[in-house]
């Protein structure tokens, strides 16, 4: 009996052992099948559930002023998307989201009620707003990290900087022109998601090497602000239509300010008139009026005429062919210097008669009128300078005092700067350098002399003439600044009838262009006021704004007065921020 029992037990043990070995063998076989034979296929299947490939884009580069102040930067934002097919109650979802984002509820409801698999809800939402919407826990609403362009100084230099669209691509200004430099680079990456569908390692892959390059401008934020303020005051005081002010360093051609009025806020560009987006200092041409007389005088001096050469100014009325030109006052004999000082149209026309059309044309085209400066801004106008062979008699007369020719504000300030720096036409500069995302210099732009347009002697004589304009008996006395020798020229041009022929009555452009200090010019400034209502002479409308910009910029840049050499000037502390 015990033997049978032992045998039975032994058999059972053998059976159990066989079963266990068989199970282990089965497990091993299955494990081999899963891990080795189907391993690749299954791991791919699993990865598809928790990872996917997407294209990511780095952050957009910054736009900085010459002192590295941010003019345009990107901040983190969230893009909210939806899968309308998964939203159970579109009306309720639309109401809750629209309330938080302050967007059109009706339009959002329409979007969420469709049967589509994808729809944009809102792009560039702040992280705080996104968190509030996330807390609503609405099925079918998704969040993606994004960035949004932000202009911390709001209206400042809006027309120069421009703005980007919803997809973070530049639409206007430097944002558009330098889009390829500023925009972040793209890369295809594989993302891992957790059980809740959250992306685990997104930011790690969206690293700084994808960030776009930054551009450093020649613009000085402070001078830009001073210019915008002075211009706004001039335009408002004279109930004018618009205005432009430019500040340039004559020695290098660097633009320190490009101010426009009316302004617009690039953070909310949709709220402004499209006409205000344009950088009109570069894109629009206008008849500069008497400000052109300095270039006529330059042509004469280069031909050997001296500043003391006298010209009979016909007592205020002079007939050229069937046209009659007038001076504001009746003059008889005036020297070239006095013609500039008192802004005699007849004197300027007679200068051209004496030197010939070709000499004037060559001088004006030498100063860059009629051709683009190639500053690198989209839509730059070359202005209009008709070849001298096509000039009629009245054309040559009118061009000599700035009618019948059109130029951009940029061309005019560049020409004035050439006189200020001793005769070299500089290529205007707006971008100083391009920086990589790590802050290293990628490209640096240097001042470039286009050509010598007048001799240093001629430039010196022109400076003396322009200094008389601001002195007693000149037309630009309102531009004088105590302690400084200012050189300038007023201009008042009648505007051409829009879409018609001839000149409009009571529609003027007031101009003042000049530079200072006379001996060693640090700044050249141009102020243009379009259609002023109360007064219209450049000396009354634009000159005071010129004075304010120049005086405040000198104060900021700590440029000491040069007059009263026996006196000591103590300047209050300016300094850049």
């Amino acid at each position: 009996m015990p033997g049978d029992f032992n045998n039975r037990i032994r058999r059972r043990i053998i059976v159990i052992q066989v079963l266990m070995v068989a199970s282990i063998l089965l497990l091993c076989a299955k494990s081999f099948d899963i891990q080795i034979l189907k391993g690749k296929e299954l791991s791919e299947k699993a990865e598809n559930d928790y990872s996917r490939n997407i294209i990511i884009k780095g952050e957009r580069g910054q736009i900085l002023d010459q002192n590295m102040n941010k003019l345009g930067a990107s901040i983190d934002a969230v893009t909210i998307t939806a899968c309308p097919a998964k939203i159970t109650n579109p009306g309720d979802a639309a109401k809750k989201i629209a309330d938080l984002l302050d967007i059109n509820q009706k339009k959002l409801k329409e979007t969420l009620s469709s049967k589509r698999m994808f729809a944009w809800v809102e792009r560039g939402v702040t992280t705080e707003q996104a968190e509030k919407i996330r807390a609503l826990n609405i099925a079918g609403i998704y969040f993606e990290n994004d960035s949004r362009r932000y202009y911390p100084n709001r209206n400042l230099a809006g027309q120069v900087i421009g703005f980007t669209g919803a997809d973070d691509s530049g639409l206007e200004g430097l944002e558009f022109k330098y889009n390829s430099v500023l925009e972040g680079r793209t890369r295809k990456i594989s993302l891992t998601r957790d059980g809740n569908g959250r992306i685990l390692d997104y930011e790690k892959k969206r690293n700084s090497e994808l960030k776009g390059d930054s551009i450093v401008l020649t613009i000085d934020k402070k001078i830009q602000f001073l210019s915008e303020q002075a211009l706004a005051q001039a335009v408002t005081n004279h109930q004018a239509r618009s205005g432009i002010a430019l500040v340039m360093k004559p020695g290098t051609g660097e633009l320190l300010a490009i101010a426009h009025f009316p302004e617009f806020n690039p953070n909310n560009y949709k709220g402004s008139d499209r006409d205000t987006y344009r950088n009109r200092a570069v894109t629009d041409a206008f008849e500069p009026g008497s400000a052109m007389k300095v270039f006529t005088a330059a042509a004469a001096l280069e031909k050997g005429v001296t500043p003391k050469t006298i010209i009979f100014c016909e007592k205020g009325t002079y007939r050229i062919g069937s046209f009659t030109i007038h001076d504001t006052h009746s003059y008889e004999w005036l020297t070239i210097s006095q013609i500039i000082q008192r802004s005699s149209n007849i004197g300027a026309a007679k200068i051209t008669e004496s030197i010939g059309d070709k000499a004037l044309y060559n001088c004006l085209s030498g100063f860059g009128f009629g051709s683009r400066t190639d500053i690198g801004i989209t839509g730059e106008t070359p202005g209009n300078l008709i070849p001298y062979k096509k000039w009629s008699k009245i054309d040559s007369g009118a061009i000599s005092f700035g009618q019948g020719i059109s130029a951009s504000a940029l061309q005019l300030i560049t020409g004035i700067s050439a006189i200020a720096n001793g005769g070299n036409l500089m290529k205007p500069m707006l971008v100083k350098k391009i920086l990589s995302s790590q802050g290293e210099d990628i490209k640096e732009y240097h001042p470039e002399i286009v050509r010598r347009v007048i001799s240093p002697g001629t430039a010196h004589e022109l400076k003396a003439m322009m200094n008389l304009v601001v002195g007693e008996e000149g037309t630009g006395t309102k531009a004088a600044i105590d302690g400084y020798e200012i050189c300038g020229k007023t201009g008042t041009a009648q505007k051409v009838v829009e879409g018609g022929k001839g000149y409009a009555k009571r529609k003027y452009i007031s101009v003042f262009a000049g530079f200072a200090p006379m001996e060693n010019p640090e700044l050249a400034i141009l102020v243009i006021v379009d259609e002023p209502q109360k007064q219209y002479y450049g000396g009354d409308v634009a000159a005071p704004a010129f004075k304010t910009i120049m005086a405040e910029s000198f104060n900021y840049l700590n440029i000491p007065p040069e007059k009263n050499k026996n006196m000591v000037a103590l300047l209050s502390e300016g300094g850049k921020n």
Partner: protein
Amino acid sequence: MAAKNNNMIKSHVPRKTTGFRWLVIIFIIFSELMVYTWIRTESTHALLRISQAEELLLHKRSYHKALLAEKEWLKSDARITQIAKNRLNLSIVTMKQTIYFSGEDR
């Protein structure tokens, strides 16, 4: 009888060793499975913790960036000038900021 018992003992000893070996193999495989599972779980947890830390860092960095942008606006000339003019009733006296001394006063 004694000889028979001796034979039984001899024949049982190898059988016991074989069973023990199998148990050891099963234990090793089971342990390996447990360790593997534990490592995978820990790895996933670590990944989640890293992800959460990164998310927090991202949030802080984003907040820092927003604060920098706000700082730029706070120090903007337009804002400061507005406060100076409207709240503090200050005015700009650019033309009076230069004080002249005669040469004798030096």
